[in-house]
Every structure is written in C-alpha cells, then in structure tokens.
C-alpha cells in the first residue's frame, strides 16, 4: 500500500507541475496536429492505400509527439536540482519510475485522444468502428512507449543532447511495439476486429509491456545512482 501511495505521490506531482505550465503538453499536441495535417496533404484520403497505411501514420505521429512529452519527464527535475532530493528521499527507484511513467502515460493518452478524432477526419477513416479494441491497442502501445521512454529519459537526463538521444535510444527498442500497434490499428480503423489471424500482434504488445516494465523497474536504481 505504501508503495502504491508513493507511486501516486510522484504521479500527481508530475501531473500538477505539467498542468501548471502545460509546456510539454502544448508542444506535443501542436506537433501531433501539425504533422497530421501535413501528412493529410501528402496522401490522398480517398485512396485505399492511404487508409491501409493510416495506422502506421498515426503511430508515427503518436511516437514523435510522445517523445516531446517523455523528454521532459526527468529533465523537469534538473532546474533547482530536484532530482537530488528525489534520489535522496526514502522511496524505491521503482516507485519513482512508475509514478513518472504513469504521469507520462496519462499525458500522452490525452494528446492521443485529442488527435484521434482529427485523424479520423483528415484520413477519412472510421476509427470508432472497433473502438473498444482500438482503445485496448492504444493503451497497451502507449504504456510500452512511456515505460521505455521514461527509463531512457532517466538515462539521458544528464546528457547535453538528451532531446536527440532519447528518440535515438528509444525508437529502436520500440520497433516491435510500434509494429504491433500499426498493424492492429490499420485493421481496426478499417473495421476489421482482432481475430486469430492478427492476435499475435496483441500478444506481442502485452509481452512487450510486461518485459520492458520488469526490465525498467529492475534497472532504474542503477540508472539513477550508478
């Protein structure tokens, strides 16, 4: 119970700090909307091919927009040396990581849920056709993206080029999760439910989340303190 409460304290602190300034959320949301609009100029929304790759386009936008939020996760602790105070507090590194990852998860989801209806309009896709399953895919893939992004945010926090290093480190790791999310999203927005044929992507997303959550929790103390 104490552990969950500590996760909640860290999560609420990050959400409160971000919502007071809205720096990262505004940047991420603006980026997502601008890229969605630009891609819609590049691809003809009436073409079947565009709809077939729409899942890929959507997740590329989500991944890059999410990176803008994830970059701020530990960087937020740098002014005033707040990271020192968090590291010296008697909380497990895993509670710190999971609290930050949950805050990131909610912020990235907020950006995604605002961008999703616009995606439907610009690309002429019925994203509500299989909404409960699409929601499940979004939740799973977003958690995968945020847990790896949060641990890499901790790893790169003291690097001068952390804004560049985070996507360079995170995206190669994310390839399996993004592939799964893209495949499933393309099918779901085309109105096809998840079946036996493509359920392996869903299983892979679940496996990815479990594996990288466990690895991140295991490594976070080393990442923070050495």
């Amino acid at each position, binding site marked *: 119970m*104490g552990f969950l*409460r*500590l996760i909640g*304290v*860290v999560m609420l*602190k990050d959400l*409160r*700090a971000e919502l*007071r*300034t809205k720096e990262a959320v505004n940047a991420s949301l603006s980026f997502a909307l601008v890229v969605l609009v630009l891609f819609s100029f590049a691809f003809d929304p009436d073409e079947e091919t565009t709809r077939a790759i729409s899942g890929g386009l959507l997740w590329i936008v989500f991944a890059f927009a999410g990176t803008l939020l994830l970059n701020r996760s530990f960087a937020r602790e740098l*002014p*005033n*040396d*707040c990271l*020192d*105070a*968090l*590291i*010296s*507090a*008697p*909380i*497990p590194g895993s509670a710190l990581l999971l609290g930050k990852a949950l805050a990131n998860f909610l912020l990235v989801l907020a950006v995604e849920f605002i961008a999703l209806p616009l995606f439907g309009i610009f690309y002429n896709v019925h994203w509500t056709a299989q909404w409960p399953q699409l929601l499940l895919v979004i939740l799973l893939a977003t958690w995968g993206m945020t847990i790896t992004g949060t641990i890499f945010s901790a790893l790169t926090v003291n690097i001068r080029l952390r804004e560049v290093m985070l996507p360079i480190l995170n995206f190669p790791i994310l390839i399996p999760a993004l592939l799964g999310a893209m495949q499933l999203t393309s099918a779901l927005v085309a109105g096809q439910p998840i079946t036996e044929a493509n359920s392996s992507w869903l299983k892979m997303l679940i496996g990815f989340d479990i594996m990288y959550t466990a690895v991140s929790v295991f490594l976070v*103390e080393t990442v923070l*303190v*050495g």
Partner: protein
Amino acid sequence: MSSAAAVKVDGVWKFYGDYPALRNVNLVAEPGSCLALIGRNGAGKTTLLRTIAGFSRAGKGKIEIFGGATRDPETRRSMGFIGHGISVYDELSALENLLLYGRLYQLPDPRASALHWLERTGLDRVKHGLVREFSRGMRQRLAVARAFLHEPRVLLLDEPFTALDDRAIAVLQTLLREALTGGKTIVMSTHQLREALELATHVALLNRGQVAFHGPCTAEMVADPGWVYARYGEG
C-alpha cells in the same frame, strides 16, 4: 546501532573515468558533532558529500550512516541534504513542495510538519505562493525547510552559506545550532570558514581528493580560519 558512528567513510575512492576524485578517504563523524569539510575548489568536497548522500556510488570503500548503507531507505530517511540547488519545484507552491516531500518521507502528518517548518523559516504567510514568484532569499529558506522537514539525524550541507541572504543565513545558523544541541550530526562543505568554524566541532581538510587533515576544531582555527590551510594545505 546507536553506538555506531553517525557517518563513517572507510577507504573511499571515487573515479570520474580514470581520474580519482577521491583517494582513499577515511573520515568519521560522531553523533552530535559538526564536521566541516574544507579545501580548495576541486579538492573533492562536493564529490565526497554527494557520495555520502548516496547520489552516486563509491568506486571502492564503504560509507555507513549509523551503521547502515547509504542507499537503504531507513538511512535515507535519517539524512537531510542541502546542495547547490534548492531542490524545490518552481511550479508548485511552498506548501505543496513541503507536502510532496512530507509524503515521500511518509511523515505521519505531512501537513502539520510542512506548516511547522514554513513558520520556522518565516514563509507561513506566503505558503500558497508559487515558488517561481519567490525572491531568492525566500527560495533559499524554503530549501532549508525542505531539508529539515523530516527531522533528519544527519545533515549533509554542501556550501550551505553560499549565496544566502542575511536572513537566510540567520535562519540556517539558528536551525543548525538547535540541531547540534539536539544531538544531530552535521557534515558540511564550505569555503566560508568563519561561519562554518563557529559551528564546527571537527575539521577535515581535503587536498586533491585526499584527507590532508582531520581533527577537532581548535581555538587557532577559530581565531584564524586560514590557519589550517597554512599548516596542512598546499599553501
């Protein structure tokens, strides 16, 4: 447990790459003592304090706080640290900052502790103000409140008097004297020898990562803060 030294640094080495920032450092601070770490810039004072605080691991050697390892949660609960930064969030109010740390330290009544330390540091009237709107002196007093909030048994202070305004220096000196009277242990690095030696019971001079002198603070040192440098330093 209670008979253990408050802070024991035993043969500690710390490397940055191949460069040894700390070389076989041995120090002991007994409970209720105040150890002033002095030395030139780059001597290793901050590195030593940060290693004692558990922000990074020693390359070799061992550090114990009341017999416990620095990264043990119970050990961390017993330590308070003031570093170069104030370690409070600009986007939160003074009260929200202290409530945050009170909850992270799992204090029985975080709000009561926060309000008590806001009053002790003279910030109770601005408790709902955002830290980003505070003057520099108010921010520093909030940093002091944060470090004392959980009533730590060991205080680790890195250049605590640097850049403080007069009021913050007065607040900090009063709190440090009270802490010493209450049996707490203080380890502080400093260049401001006069303020530090008024409080110190022991002095350690670091020179290029090594302890050049470690002993009680004597009348000669208080009378002439440069004496220990002249006697044991590089000159």
